[in-house]
Every structure is written in C-alpha cells, then in structure tokens.
C-alpha cells in the first residue's frame, strides 16, 4: 500500500473545503446555532486559509519539476540534451546516471546553494514567464546564464565525494575552484554542457520504459 502524495492531500483539502463552503453558501441558516457559527468559521476562514497555503506550496514545489521547466517550447533543446548518448555532456551524464534527482534535474543544477538561492530562482522564473508571455523570448541558442556558472553548485555535491577527492587535479586546484578563479565548466575540463548547437549530430539514449 502506498501513501497518498502531497498533491493528493492538497486536492482532497481543496475539495473538502469547497464542499463545506458550499453548505454554508447554500444554507446560511445553519449559522443560527452556536455549533453552526463554529462550522462557518472553520468552513469560511480556517480551511480556506490552510488550503490556499497548501495549494500555493504545491504550486511552488511543482516549479522544481523537470517537466515544468521543459513545458516551455524554448527549453526543448535543453531537455533533449539530457538524453545525449555521450558521457562528455555533463548534464546528460548526471541525468542519465541519476546523480541528480531526474524529476528535478534543471532545478538541482540551476538554483544557487545559498541562503536565498531558492527565492532568487523563483524570481528569475517569474521574469522568464514575463518574457515568455509579454516580451520577446530569445532563440534557444541565444539563452545565456545571468552570471557565470558558480562552482559552488558543483561542489555542493562533489566536494568530499571519494571520486572527486581521489582526483589529484581536483585537489591541486581546489582553492581556485572554491574561489571561482577557475571554472569547472569553462576552464577546459568539463566544458561540454548542454551544447545545443551540436545536438543535430549527437546520438541519443532512449531509456527503457
């Protein structure tokens, strides 16, 4: 037996709340008694407040999903690059080998692992929505990061990992990596990232369903 997920619980809360609200809306006379007043307070105040917070939380959680990011047409080539059959492609190697959660692949690497990283990621997301619907979205190959990719996002997982520590080169340049003096992805070591320009020539891995 599997427990219902958070989304199911949110749906249930919203439906139950709607049902109780409907009772008060159809028969407001139920509030004539003391018990009815308490019922109305629960149905028209407590449950809606709790439900709206739960639904908002669920919406924010959903924005972390890979399928959410790839629901914008402009992101399609980036999603495709996760299936390139070549371990030199850093995102593909991470995605295909489950080194990152596959359901939150974009978010895992493109959020800042800092105090307000998640908040900044959400604000950038709102800007992307604005550009998508009210602005002029750039071509996929013209999309650039706001700032150079911070090694902190790589080191968040790799620092302290045996495979990372046992590599003599990593250990020799560790201080430069920590200070971003050298970049993991643009200093010539792991520089094949999404590279969507070369996807037309790439072979693709197709996972067995």
């Amino acid at each position, binding site marked *: 037996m599997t427990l219902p997920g958070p989304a199911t619980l949110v749906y249930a809360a919203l439906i139950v*709340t709607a049902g109780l*609200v409907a009772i*008060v809306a159809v028969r*407001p006379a139920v509030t004539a008694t003391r018990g009815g007043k308490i019922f109305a307070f629960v149905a028209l105040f407590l449950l*809606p407040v709790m439900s*709206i917070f739960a*639904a908002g939380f669920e919406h*924010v959680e959903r924005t972390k999903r890979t399928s959410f990011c790839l629901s914008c047409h402009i992101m399609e080539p980036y999603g495709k690059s996760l299936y390139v059959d070549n371990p030199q492609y850093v995102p593909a190697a991470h995605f295909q080998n489950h080194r990152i959660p596959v359901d939150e692949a974009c978010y895992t690497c493109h959020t800042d692992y800092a105090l307000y990283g998640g908040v900044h990621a959400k604000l950038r*997301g709102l800007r992307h*929505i604005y550009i998508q619907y009210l602005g002029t979205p750039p071509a996929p190959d013209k999309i650039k990061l706001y700032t150079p990719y911070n090694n902190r996002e790589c080191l968040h997982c790799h620092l302290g990992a045996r495979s990372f520590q046992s590599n003599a080169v990593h250990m020799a340049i560790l201080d430069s990596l920590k200070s971003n003096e050298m970049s993991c992805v643009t200093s010539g070591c792991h520089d094949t990232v999404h590279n969507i320009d070369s996807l037309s020539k790439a072979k693709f891995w197709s996972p067995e369903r």
Partner: protein
Amino acid sequence: MTEPAMPLEPKLRLAGLLLLCGLLVAIVTLTWNAPLSFLVFSGIGGPFIFAGIVVYLYSLTNLHHN
C-alpha cells in the same frame, strides 16, 4: 449615525460564492502543468479567496445589527 446593516445571510452567501470561485480556480490550476497556472492561481484564485474571507470576517463585525 450608523449605516443600515445588510442581513447576515446574503453576506455569508457572497463569501461562500467568492470562496468557491477561488477554490475552483485553485483546483483547476493544480491540474494544469504550465508556468501560467501559477499566475492564474495567484492572480485570480488568490484574490477570490482573500475577498471571500474578508466578506466573511466583515459579516462577523456586523453581527450585533442582526
């Protein structure tokens, strides 16, 4: 001079209807997996629910008139 109070029941109905609209928008947007769904949820569903709660709380402040 005080305003004549609106009877409680229409206010509760109004609060209920606003809340129902907001909850319906919340349910629909949760089934819709697109970036626009969050904007519809927060821009339409949220204000409906907020208005419903405000109408309900306002009705409580006028209870003594009824």
